């Protein structure tokens, strides 16, 4: 049967088509399996269930010179949202990490880091800088809460995806 006549049958997949799609699916699953961490991190990131939150998206990431007791590299990750950019430098320090951040444009807000066990929170200086120290390793999510009591409207949070510290 020609490609054309088969194509005409639009959605009429026969058993062979189904089989091929099934095989293909299995190929992809075997060769490029979705890491379990996709679901794990997504669920972690969704836990706040903040319907009005803006989303920070990964804009850049790179590693610095090896540092820290374990010889691990510090990482720099930048996230963009529609209104804000946040850059964080993650320094591994033995069992914990230190996070230095910079928010642009600078504005009054609080920065929270949700980790598995607790939430670590800090303010931001007039240049947009903040520091989160003694942060436990593991999954974490950065939440920026804008502090301006704007006219009537509730403050809007901005969330990053879950990252591994």
């Amino acid at each position, binding site marked *: 049967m020609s490609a054309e006549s088969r194509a*005409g049958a639009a959605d009429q997949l026969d058993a062979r*088509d189904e089989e091929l799609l099934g095989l293909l699916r299995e*190929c992809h*699953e*075997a060769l490029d*399996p*979705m890491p379990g961490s996709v679901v794990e991190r997504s669920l972690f990131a969704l836990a706040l269930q903040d319907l009005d939150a803006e989303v920070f*998206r990964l804009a850049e990431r790179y590693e610095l010179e090896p540092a820290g007791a374990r010889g691990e590299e510090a990482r720099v990750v930048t996230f963009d949202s529609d209104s804000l950019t946040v850059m964080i430098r993650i320094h591994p320090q033995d069992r914990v990490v230190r996070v230095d951040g910079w928010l642009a444009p600078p504005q009054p807000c609080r920065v929270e880091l949700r980790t598995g066990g607790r939430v670590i929170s800090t303010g931001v200086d007039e240049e947009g800088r903040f520091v989160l120290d003694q942060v436990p390793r593991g999954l974490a999510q950065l939440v920026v809460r804008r502090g301006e009591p704007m006219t009537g409207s509730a403050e809007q949070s901005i969330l990053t*995806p879950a990252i591994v510290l």
Partner: protein
Amino acid sequence: MTMIDPPVLDPAVPESTGPDPAAPDSAAPDSVAAPQPVRRPDADRHERLAALLLAAQAGRREGLEQIVVELSPLLWQVARAQGLDREAAEDAVQCTWLTLLGNLDRIHTPVALTAWLVTATKREAWRVRAALKAELPVDGSAMTEMTDTANSLPAPEESVLLAERHRDVWRAVRTLPRRCQELLRVVAFVNRPDYDEIAVALGMPRGSIGPTRGRCLAKLRTLLDTEPHRSTA
């Protein structure tokens, strides 16, 4: 933190095990053991997804969580088919879920949900790629780190993971036009009733995915029939 064992769906299992069609002891690679039509109880799946959607909209967390478990494997394929590396794909899928939260109320059917998610994942993938392109001038080396150069699929030689009958299919698929590869990759993870909506999500005119998919599948079949055991790579 909430952790759910991905129960129903296979793909979220650890990488080493996987569905492993190549398991040495897997019965009769050539004849019997046709692929289990695991993904074909479409109607059931639809009903379940519809119920989960309602639960999620009512603010019930388990609803949303199950949707994440259920549909992340598809979104992973979409992100990877867009050429993102594994880490970037993971971020793209997460951002898609975060974005869904604010849009849940506007989505009324499981089909619309799937289509919305596929569209959103593509958009997230584009954003990541655009951001990296903008930031990187000419040589684009980091770009290739982030988005696989060999955007097309791994060579069959790499695929010691695959049983023979899979290898033949894989070899053949790799010789298809890239568009076909992407399309079939996503379609293989989609419920049949969703094709039409997914067509729109993939940027194809409504209704066209049928014929296009048909053509891609037809080519694949021709390849398999005419060059049964030749590597074309």
